[in-house]
């Protein structure tokens, strides 16, 4: 009897372990199949003229040049606002604020802001920048909406980076007679530079792929005057918005080719940002550990 019970338990164990292996294999096959399919279908769509020419709304043969430009332009603008703002709030919370009502209100606001779905943030951007400020669809409105969307995440990463700087470094600097602000500028921020840079690159990947918040803020068209327009108040359709728009609303006859090409460019950028973040992390780790 006891023998059979032990056999049953061992069989149960084997079956369960096999199930775990199978679910892992299923997910691996899924990932490889999806990414492989994406690259295989996208590679045939890619060409130099596709990457550089202007889109064609109605006929065939349109490219994604201005969309790639706008994606990087909005990415740059968004980082320009997000990084200093996140650093400032994180510095205030980590280095200055006393625990209390004010600090927890700021923390709570950040957590609440982090949960806002991106389409809801897009509607807020529409209200503020299009309805109230009357900018119409603009690169600046889109970038500011993305700033609000990504500020909480960037802030949390900055807080963690600052938190990891050892207190003894601050004390040493203060003991040498440096003021608190000088200590922050010359000791704390340089000490946190490695995780900070990794965080910025990771958030850059998120900004690059964001779509829902941009449809009603940066718009679904490129600037009429000049497709490669640095103007802050011109519409700026990004690559991810373009991928959606060609399928949801557009009438381009070669939508399939545009979609495949745009998707593979987007995924390639995400991979590049991820690898870059890892490389930067390793580079700083090697430098600071002295090996």
């Amino acid at each position: 009897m006891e023998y059979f019970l032990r056999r049953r338990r061992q069989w149960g164990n084997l079956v369960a372990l096999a199930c775990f292996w199978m679910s892992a294999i299923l997910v691996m096959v899924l990932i490889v199949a999806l990414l492989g399919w994406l690259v295989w279908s996208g590679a045939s769509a890619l060409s130099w003229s596709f990457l550089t020419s202007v889109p064609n709304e109605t006929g065939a043969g349109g490219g994604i040049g201005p969309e790639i430009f706008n994606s990087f332009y909005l990415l740059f603008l968004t980082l320009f606002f997000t990084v200093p703002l996140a650093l400032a709030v994180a510095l205030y919370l980590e280095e200055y604020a006393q625990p209390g009502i004010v600090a927890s209100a700021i923390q709570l606001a950040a957590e609440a802001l982090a949960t806002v779905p991106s389409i809801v943030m897009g509607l807020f951007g529409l209200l503020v920048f299009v309805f109230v400020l009357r900018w119409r669809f603009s690169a600046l409105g889109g970038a500011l909406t993305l700033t609000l969307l990504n500020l909480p995440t960037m802030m949390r990463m900055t807080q963690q980076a600052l938190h990891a700087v050892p207190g003894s470094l601050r004390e040493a600097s203060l003991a040498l007679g440096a003021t608190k602000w000088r200590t922050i500028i010359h000791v704390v921020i340089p000490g946190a530079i490695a995780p900070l840079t990794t965080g910025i690159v990771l958030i850059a990947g998120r900004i690059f792929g964001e779509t829902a918040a941009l449809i009603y803020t940066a718009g679904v068209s490129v600037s009429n005057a000049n497709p490669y327009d640095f103007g802050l108040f011109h519409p700026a359709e990004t690559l991810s918005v373009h991928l959606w728009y060609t399928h949801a609303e557009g009438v381009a006859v070669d939508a399939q080719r545009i979609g495949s090409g745009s998707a593979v460019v987007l995924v390639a950028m995400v991979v590049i940002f991820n690898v870059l973040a890892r490389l930067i992390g390793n580079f700083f780790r090697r430098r600071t550990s002295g090996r």
Partner: protein
Amino acid sequence: MHREEAFALWVLRACALFLVVAMASLVAYLGYQASGLFTIDQVSLGEFLTSFRFDPDLNHVGAAVFLLGSLSVTGLALLIGGPLGVAVAIFLSEIAPPALASVLTLTIELLVGIPSVVYGWLGLLVVVPFVRATSLTSGFGFLAAGLVLGVMILPTVVALSLEALRAQPQSLREGSLALGATRWETICHVLLPAARAGLGVAFLLGIARAIGETLAVQMVIGNASVFPHDLFHAAATLPTEIVLDMAGAPPGSLLQHALFAMACVLLGISLLLVLLVRMIARRS
């Protein structure tokens, strides 16, 4: 010197204040726009939340179709992505050889960063034809949306469950194995109960990601403002209806007010989820 210190502190304070003001004005602005539905258009809150009739041209703006649609799609996604995600997390932390685990973890981290439109695009070209072929319908609908969302929340669920499982002390596992329990019994009776708070958070954040997702769902759900009687027919969710109708809604109209009110419902659900996560985190 002292002026520099004081100035810096004021700048930092102003930035922190900006964050609070931004969040407060987001709630206030959206709430104000939505309130027009109840004050100007005289729609009752009950009708808005429970009526299944959405026909703005005839002054009917019941959002129940979309609310129920959002909840159903999210539930379906959780049914697909939740158990699979936890199983993969258990595999990674308890069973996989270290080399395989690190490769798989890296790939899953990469999946988190893939933009939602790309998931929608994959859904449009892989999932929808697959559903069409197996069910002899258009392929657009709840099932396609649930499958796409299930794959989308998978990395979130895996990453957070993995964190919860790895945080459990090694002595728990050793104690259970030393008592003669098999690995499966250790996982099922010791590890999972010990990590249940973290697993709950993983599910909640998976739900949060699924319910706010707009474009990946919009591309595959078919977009019909009726509640379908099965999984294979076109439907809609709160975010998909907002993104489709907003462009054609005249400022100050009934439709626009209704869309902002739907955004508020979505915001409310998201805030509720975070409140739950906070409560769980505080208790454990």
